[in-house]
């Protein structure tokens, strides 16, 4: 995925899941960029698939 802040690319599983360390234990679906620390929202897979189906050439 591409970090929304610094624009660098990283594998989703290389980023640190942000919500693991939250005292609320909430599932915020955010992944921290390993380069700049920005927390990027990770859309649910079904929504990403739907988007690719609706707009096949639109890069995420």
């Amino acid at each position: 995925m591409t970090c929304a802040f610094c624009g660098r690319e990283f594998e989703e599983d290389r980023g640190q899941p942000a919500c693991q360390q939250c005292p609320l234990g909430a599932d915020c679906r955010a992944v921290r960029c390993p380069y700049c620390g920005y927390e990027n929202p990770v859309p649910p897979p079904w929504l990403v698939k739907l988007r690719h189906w609706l707009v096949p050439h639109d890069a995420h």
Partner: protein
Amino acid sequence: MPEASRSTQAAKSAAGPACHAGPPAPAAPAGAARVALIGAPNVGKSALFHRLTGHYVTVSNYPGTSVEVTRGSAWLGGRPAEVLDTPGLYSLLAWTDEERVARRIVLSGEADVVVHVVDAKALERMLPLTLQLLESGRPLVVALNMIDEASRLGVEVDARRLSARLGVAVVPVVAVEGRGVEELGRAIAAALAAGARPVRILYGNSVGEAMLSVRERLVGVYPVDPASFVALLFQGDSEVAAEVARREPDGGSAARAAVDRATTALGAPASYRISVERRRLSGELLDGAIVRAGANPPRWLDVLGRLLTRPATGIPVLLIVLYFGLYAFVGQFGAGTVVDWLEGGFERYVTPFFESLFAPVPWAPVRSLFVGEYGLLTLGLRYAVAIILPIVGAFFLFFSVLEDSGYFPRLALLVDRVFKPLGLSGRAVIPMVLGFACDTMATMVTRTLETRRERVIATLLLALAIPCSAQLGVILAILSGEPLALAAWVAAIAGSFLLVGALGARVLPGAPARFHMELPPLRRPRAGNVFLKTYTRMHWYFLEVLPLFLLASVLLWIGNLTGLFGVAVSALTPVVGLLDLPPETAAVFLFGFFRRDYGAAGLFDLDRAGSLDAVQLAVAAVTLTLFVPCIAQFLMMVRERGVRTAVGMLVFITPFAFGGGLLVNLLLRRLAG
């Protein structure tokens, strides 16, 4: 095709044991040249590696690290070669362990030839690293990968012209198909034969002179041209600074002093100036060497991107963005129009429906749990759905538009100078911006800041003066009709931020933090991206908020039944009385400590009920914003900064918030006459 060997090569070197499961590989022949493939992630390095080396490769950890480097052997220009597929690298200024390993392979001089693999579609972003590699003086070849995709997108690159300008071979390739790989092999062999040669990059705008003044101080022995180390010294890279200290007879003190002098002379963050120069030089190198048919990025975006980082133009643009985005869209539309509509729906249909549903329940306490003053359905559900959700929804939409446009990194550069006297750098924009979405999450992100001093100051400012999205939306909505009250709130919060930050920077010892960032391009936000991000954030927020709002309602119901809530409110009533606020405000402050947004919703209710005049609204808004963070944020503060620091912050913030409210009350009452 180059003369690719199908043999394997053992990783029985200092690199440690091979991790690749498979037959043992023979060692690389003696005298094999080492070729390193360097480049950003996803530019096709691995595909090219496999084309050059064949299928049999070894994967081993780079010495002293857990980062894997893939090696394979090849015959290039009639001689054996070991090819290294390195981790992705955007710039020699490395942030991650993987990047540090790729950089070490370049700066250690262990590669006899460096192949910079670039994505032909995004050449503008890749060329600054080419300049850095060129600066190292090692033999270099540029592999212009994905040239077919670039062509399909209307991007035509004149490789010959670019090669002449760079002074190194630029070979168009399509790694996945093997096209151009044979030519690349020949170019690598030619670069090997030519050997290392010094290259001087002609930086302009005083940057070149500044770098030269430091370069002249380096008298030690370096495996590559020390010019590579100079730029990294300016960029505050601690690993490189340690390396320079090790190699210089004076421990690097002359170089450090020269960097400090040159930085002062430049008058702007040197790392930023170097980065800008590299982009400018890249643009010049590509001028006429790249043609984008029908796909030219709009020039006005480049111009706008530059204007956003300059204080004279960037600050007015920031104020316009805040006015239309936060005040008009989030405050007036989200927290006004949409909330009115949803609240109306709750009042007319939802609440009467639930009340009629529970009317037959004979036990008043049970009935009040669901539809009473603090009922699960009439308070918890209504707060979450009718008040907070539309506000945070509007905020997240605005936030996602800015995020997708690439505005935030420019904001970081813009405020870097403002943040310096507060002991922060532009990098602190990341937690500050995230704090408007959720202060708890943002507190965790402060760990990415460079120094402890910066982390402590940022944590304190987040707890004190950064309202979360719901709080901000509600406050903008209730103060939108009262310009004086709104101005007082803005002045109080901005003043507190600057004052406490400046005090923190004076009290806490430590060197000022440095900030460097490669700017991604400014772009038009894509509707699809904006929708996905807004939806994801709203989904998370709603799932988090609803259960907590319902839990708060249950706690309030228990507190009400047992009388404990009344005791707590009574204890706070004299304090809010000092601020000339009605006793009901005490309950809002208690809500606010449970969750900031719950307190904000309570304030919204009080405003709708007409319980507060303009001055009281401003005082309540100021105090509630500055007031102690919610429980979740406090727990995060304890985790990140330790119990003593977190409790210390709490002890400071509580009287500061009430003192701030008191001061605003006195000033506004005097102004009101």
